[in-house]
């Protein structure tokens, strides 16, 4: 059993993971940092982000305004100390990225350009044409190559955290190439593995977003916080779920129903003057309501609304939204210069995640989390577009600094202890490889997807959520009888799919159980039976704690309020 | 079946951690798809080699004396030599056209403060210079100029 030793182990190589690795090296070049990812860093899902990253940049903007927009966008569930820190650091982080080569789009005078985005009172979203995630990820990855202390373990799947005497001591990972299990000691561990959109059938997320880090922390006893808040991005392509960025609306696109009506303007959906630039939860609800009222357009992949960009002109579209045009033509056969793009709400982001404080620290000493996997909580009940990429940078860096500090105070773990973790995992994974059960991975996955779509959609009800909870509990049981045909050692992707399915089932259950318990509507969590926000009883975070094979236990955590007092959320 | 690529193609310097199957060249290589044009392009090197040898032969004869020169001139009107020169002309035109097509995009975006001219201008310049020089050479060699 090979045991490798590093000071810091970072799980996940996306924006948060890479920023954390770089921050650790900047703080102390003597630290040895392991960056463990199940894919090569350029494949991390950060790459697919399109719209932009928010940070105060203009004279007519202020940290105060960005803070308030975020608090209000979160439907007052965001922790205000976290938000305060976030808006202060945002412009600095984006500036750092510019210094590292990120090709931000520019104004004529050479300064960084900003665009309007949903829920933001003024333009503060820095952008790189409409490929911001791609450019940010490649900039971070290429910049990380300057730091030889960052040792990358690519295509290594972390299957378990090594928790000894109540503290995080490292990770156990399956080397996908060689099929062997290794233990990587970390005096501190940072989870940066992203969200879990693949629990749902219709999602913008790529294949790799299976909630692995959330499951790892959950299985180690850390609470998952606010899991019920799943963001439905208003504009995904029907069928594939491919993201059409909010920037399309930021640049002036209009949403229309089957009568060609700009329903966000003509009807009251709570977005007021902001119309198409209202917050995502409200726009998604509006589209679903239009469809339920019979004003949606019918298509082979379900009903949809129209995103009309035709009035923007060929020039503007080709210059500022080239990828939107490419995606639309390639995946749905529509040229946005000529015709409106069919769109419908699609699962995009998890506001909830591993419960952390403002430093990214979890309830287990030595275990940190940052980015989409974490819930600090910056985004509360609903995230504003373009806050997430900045979140990864700000909290990736902060978590790394604190983790690095923490790691100085720890001692080495005896090799025998670490080896034991590895051997236990190896036995478990060997049993999984070539397992002769009766349940097909793809079948269980489809059933989980169907349960989540029915129970945890944009609109939820007691009955639909309860059914979802029991369906998921049953699926977790059936998971024990899984069938894994691939017995091979080298690059066995079926065993990976099996582990990912197990992770998703756990995370999905926490979403459904948390959703059932929250008897109000707030942000992205909307219930037909409790349609109003209830600050008296529910102005708190939901904590979901694993209880072995049984149903999880729920608890509450208070929201850190500050200068912004909860008020009615109207735009 | 596609040809084998170099056994070390795209191999990392550290040996691969598991046994790998050797790299193969793309199936269309060398005589199908766009590779045909590429192989022809590089194969014209043979033509230049032969043309160079012919030129050497002619110059040698020029240096030897008037009978040798007359002999070489007679040989050069043999149909095989004529065919060779026609092939050489075709090769040169093929290479020039293919190279000219590439040339505009090989320009750096800026040379100091100056920007290179747009592609059509560059192409006009290249073809103009080529045809112009050719005509000039024909004029000189046929005795029309400096008669």
């Amino acid at each position, binding site marked *: 059993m090979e045991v490798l030793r590093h000071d810091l182990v970072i799980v996940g190589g996306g924006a948060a993971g890479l920023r954390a690795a770089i921050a650790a090296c900047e703080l102390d070049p003597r630290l040895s940092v392991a960056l463990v990812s199940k894919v090569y860093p350029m494949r991390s*899902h950060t790459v697919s982000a399109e719209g932009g990253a928010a940070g105060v940049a203009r004279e007519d903007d202020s940290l105060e305004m960005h803070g308030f927009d975020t608090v209000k966008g979160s439907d007052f569930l965001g922790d205000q100390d976290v938000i305060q820190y976030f808006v202060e650091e945002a412009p600095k982080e984006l500036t750092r990225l510019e210094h590292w080569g990120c090709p931000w789009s520019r104004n004529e005078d050479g300064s960084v350009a900003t665009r309007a985005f949903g829920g933001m009172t003024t333009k503060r979203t820095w952008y790189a044409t409409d490929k911001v995630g791609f450019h940010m990820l490649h900039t971070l990855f290429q910049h990380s*190559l300057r730091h030889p202390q960052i040792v990358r373990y690519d295509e290594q799947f972390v299957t378990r955290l090594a928790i000894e005497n109540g503290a995080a001591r490292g990770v156990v990972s399956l080397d996908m190439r060689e099929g062997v299990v290794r233990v990587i000691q970390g005096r501190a561990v940072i989870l940066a593995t992203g969200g879990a959109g693949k629990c749902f059938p219709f999602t913008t997320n790529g294949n790799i977003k299976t909630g692995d880090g959330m499951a790892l922390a959950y299985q180690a006893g850390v609470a998952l916080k606010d899991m019920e808040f799943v963001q439905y991005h208003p504009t995904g392509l029907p069928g594939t779920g491919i993201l059409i960025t909010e920037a399309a609306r930021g640049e002036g696109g209009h949403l229309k129903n089957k009568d060609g009506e700009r329903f966000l303007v003509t009807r009251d959906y709570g977005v007021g003057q902001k119309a198409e630039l209202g917050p995502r939860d409200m726009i998604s609800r509006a589209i679903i309501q239009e469809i339920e009222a019979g004003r949606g357009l019918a298509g082979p992949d379900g009903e949809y609304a129209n995103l009309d960009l035709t009035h923007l002109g060929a020039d503007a579209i080709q210059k500022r939204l080239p990828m939107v045009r490419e995606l639309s033509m390639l995946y749905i056969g529509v040229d946005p210069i000529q015709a409106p793009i069919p769109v419908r709400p699609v699962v995009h982001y998890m506001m909830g995640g591993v419960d952390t404080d403002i430093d990214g620290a979890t309830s287990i000493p030595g275990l940190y989390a940052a980015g989409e996997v974490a819930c600090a909580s910056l985004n509360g009940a609903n995230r504003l577009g373009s806050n997430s990429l900045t979140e990864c940078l700000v909290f990736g860096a902060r978590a790394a600094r604190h983790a690095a500090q923490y790691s100085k105070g720890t001692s080495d773990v005896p090799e025998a202890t670490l080896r034991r973790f590895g051997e236990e995992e190896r036995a478990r994974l060997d049993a999984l490889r070539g397992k002769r059960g009766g349940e097909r991975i793809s079948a269980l996955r489809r059933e989980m997807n169907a349960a989540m779509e029915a129970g945890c959609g944009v609109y939820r009800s007691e009955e639909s959520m309860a059914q979802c909870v029991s369906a998921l509990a049953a699926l977790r049981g059936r998971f024990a009888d899984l069938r894994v045909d691939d017995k091979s050692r080298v690059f066995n992707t079926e065993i990976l799919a099996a582990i990912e399915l197990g992770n998703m089932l756990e995370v999905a259950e926490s979403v459904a159980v948390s959703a059932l318990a929250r008897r109000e509507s707030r942000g992205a969590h909307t219930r037909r039976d409790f349609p109003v926000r209830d600050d008296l009883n529910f102005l708190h975070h939901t904590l979901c704690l694993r209880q072995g094979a049984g149903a999880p236990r729920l608890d509450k955590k208070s929201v850190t309020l500050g200068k912004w007092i909860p008020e009615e959320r109207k735009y | 079946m596609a040809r084998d690529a170099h056994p070390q193609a795209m191999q990392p310097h550290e040996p691969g951690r598991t046994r790998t199957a050797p790299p193969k060249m*793309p199936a269309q290589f060398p005589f199908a798809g766009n*590779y045909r044009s*590429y192989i022809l392009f590089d194969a014209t090197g043979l033509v230049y080699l032969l043309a160079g040898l012919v030129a050497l032969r002619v110059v040698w004869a020029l240096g030897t004396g008037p009978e040798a020169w007359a002999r070489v001139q007679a040989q050069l009107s043999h149909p095989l030599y004529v065919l060779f020169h026609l092939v050489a002309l075709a090769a040169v035109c093929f290479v020039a056209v293919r190279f000219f097509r590439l040339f505009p995009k*090989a320009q750096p975006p800026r040379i100091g403060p100056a920007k290179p001219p747009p592609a059509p201008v560059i192409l006009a310049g290249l073809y103009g210079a080529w045809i112009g020089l050719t005509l000039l050479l024909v004029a000189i060699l046929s005795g029309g100029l400096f008669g």
Partner: protein
Amino acid sequence: MSEVKTRKFVVQRFDPDVDQAPREQSYEVPCQRNWKVLDAINFIKDELDGTLSHRWSCRMAVCGSCGMNVDGVPTLTCKKPVDELPDVVTVEPLSNFPVVRDLVVELEGFMEKLTKVKPFILRAKERAVEEGTHRQSPEELEEFKQFSLCINCMLCYAACPVVANEPEFLGPAAIALGHRYNLDSRDEGAAERNEIFRGEGTVFSCSYANECSEVCPKHVDPAAAINQAKFGAVIDWAKHLVLPRGGK
């Protein structure tokens, strides 16, 4: 017209523990009209043969994972529609790469080449965060932007005949990336990179096949980058000859 058409996919398989050499396996796949090749491969894995290994993630042509040779041509399988395919389709791992397993190729060689060109901003003096961002005009951004669009899908390496024959050649994507930094107005490291371009793995090995640009799914045009890099490397060399210590 039927929405579903069954095609035969002949897929290359290879398990180093079991197979002496790669072999073929055929699958009948009922292809929906709007599928891409990747959807068909996923169907094989999910429904027909769980032992098939392949890489994929974003399915929207931006992560670069799913490159394979389809009917002999390096292709981004999440981008290629199935209705452009014949009734019998061959799917193989990317050409010019050692094969790890089934449709999965060795990527470490590429990662080495990428690192070699120093793909990051090099400056004599780093700018402080307090000083704000560099000024860069939209024209300056346009100069290198095209070459920054590479998603590292490696189709260009799979198509390049020089990569196939010269193991040390840096290759299209790496050179394009290095050139992108050379052109970036914020970078001051062109001299260093040009030395790398003239060294082992030299850009001058490129012999104008242009196949890299033909297969590139993001229109990066690496052939343009390589040939611009040749010019840049020569000018740089000449400058150093004339001004060994001066000049940028």
